[in-house]
């Protein structure tokens, strides 16, 4: 059985949304930062053997934004799940985390949201622990597009949870 699911990645600019997708889809990484304008759309099949299902993930890589209110709402139509990405090294990308998540919940009721702290290769565990009140409580997973840490896990678990 084959199912298609739309995943939308959001978050501030430079947090590594495109890098996470590139790591997941192509298993590559580039240190060079290239701003995403509008939206890029990618597709990757994820096999869920336990459920004998192939999930076709259609991943929307949205342009980074300081304020989620500026997101083009048409991009959100038909979304099956959100991945909200922030950069653990830049407070500006997580200081309004709760408000941004609330916005998504309001716009897309009952759509699951995974909150992900990217660039965890640049910080220590102690740093993450210290910032529990800043972002730790709301975070589902710390990942690194650079090293690939937890990236496959993020997408495959999300795919599985959507079945």
């Amino acid at each position, binding site marked *: 059985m084959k199912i298609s699911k739309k995943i939308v990645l959001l978050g501030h*600019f430079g947090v590594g949304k495109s890098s996470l997708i590139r790591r997941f889809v192509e298993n590559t990484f580039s240190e060079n930062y290239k*701003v995403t304008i*509008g*939206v890029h759309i990618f597709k990757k099949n994820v096999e869920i053997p336990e459920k004998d299902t192939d999930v076709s993930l259609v991943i929307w890589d949205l342009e980074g934004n300081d304020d989620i209110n500026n997101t083009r709402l048409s991009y959100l139509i038909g979304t099956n799940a959100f991945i909200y990405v922030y950069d653990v*090294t830049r407070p500006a990308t997580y200081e309004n985390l709760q408000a941004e998540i609330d916005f998504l919940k309001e716009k897309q009721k009952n759509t699951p949201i995974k909150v992900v702290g990217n660039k965890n290769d640049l910080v220590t565990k102690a740093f993450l622990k210290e910032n529990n009140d800043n972002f730790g409580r709301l975070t589902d997973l710390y990942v690194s597009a650079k090293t690939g840490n937890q990236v496959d896990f993020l997408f495959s678990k999300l795919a599985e949870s959507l079945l």
Partner: protein
Amino acid sequence: MLTNYNFFHKKQTNQILLINKQGIIIDSESDLFIDSKGKHLSDLHPFFDTIIPLLNTTNKQYNFDCINLTIGKNTRTVDGILNTEDEHAVFVFQDLTEQYILYQKVAQLRNEAEIKSQLYYHINYLLKEKEAFKDDFIANFTHAIRMPVNTISGFTALLEDSNLEQSQRYNLNIIKNTNEKLRVMINEILDISKIESGHFTINSIRYNLLNEFDEIISIYTKKCEKKGLKLNYKIDEKCPKYVIADKYRLAQIASNLIGNAIKFTEQGSIDLNVVCKTLTKDKATIQFSITDTGIGIEQDQLEVIYKSFYQVSNKIRNDGSGLGLAIVKELVNALDGTIEVNSTLGEGTTFTVTLDFEIDKNQKEDKHITKTNKTTANYEFKILLAEPSKRDQAIFLESVSKSKKFDVVIVETGDDVVEELHKQPFDIAIFNLKLPTMDGLDTARYIRHSDFENFKQIPIMILSKHPSKEEEQYCKQRRINSYLGKPYDKDVLLRKIKYLIKKKQAN
């Protein structure tokens, strides 16, 4: 006419797709998606996968701006409008790639600048985290690192007092010396870490500045002599005697600089010159310079010599940590002083340190025991002490200093005893039974069997850590004049020394 313009400007930028409810393209204008007629939307691009469910709506309009569509090898950035009707839907695209490229360039510059400014916070945090780690390291490991080194020292000392063959003693001496070097290096690394992390503290006490320089000189005189160098020392009479300052740090600075001078000088001399630059009622600015006739430092290297782990030369054997000068510089800075260096390659180097000292109001002499040495007083008798243990050296000095009659020259090995006896006459020689290189008894035997009349009859006393009647008897048989067990009574020691000297004079 407008049709012509329309054709010219819009033909390549527009695409209209007529789609049925099942997502099949019924008709297609233009060639953004070439030969798309008859295909299913999902075959064109993943973008359409999530559009297909919208085809089931009627009389709705959906706007999709700035969609990047990779078609073949080209990526086009388009704005799209989807209009759904009863029977079908119309999707109109406008290719705005060129405009969005311009927008992308502006956004790139803006975002990069903003990210850079936001990262300062994290860089600052990382630096603090690194410092905190260093602080923890110092706090937790200072003791842990020193402990095993001290343990090695302790057990080495125990082994020294045991019956060892000469080769074993030689090997033990290597362990001892290597461990000592390790101890010095660890202390230097911990010192620089403490200074850099701000854990460095200044502990000012009242002390005799002149005595302090005397002591430093007495330590390094022996080292210079061993290397065939002369250590000249001159101190300005205007220097106050009693000051309130960090005694240990002054010694550390001077010792490091003199030690370095000795290390890099193969012949000639080392000069320590202490000058009082300015003097007020309660403050003295004292400048001390250490000049050597060593290898010198290249001019372009003078700026980097204070960097941690800097090594002056690869041409000579240098087993230090490369932290000595870095520590000196940091210490001088911490004491609000200055340090200058002048050097000529192949001729030598002068380090000049200027420090302010608080003058103690009470300049009266302290009545405490000072280590006797030949530069500070006139003594009646000269003792040669061979004692490897610093603690036992101190006990001995304290014991004999009472009488103020003795000038004590201290050496640590049997070989050094012989060397000293050849250099100058002594009234008595006192050896620890166990000595490195050649033990007390072997040294005594060498003396008694030597052809040098000036010392072959010298009174010899043996000090033993584990005294026994048998050992005392054994010593007597080997023409040892006196035998004393440790710990000894100071008065007994003095009485024995005086007796032996008196006996020698009578002969």
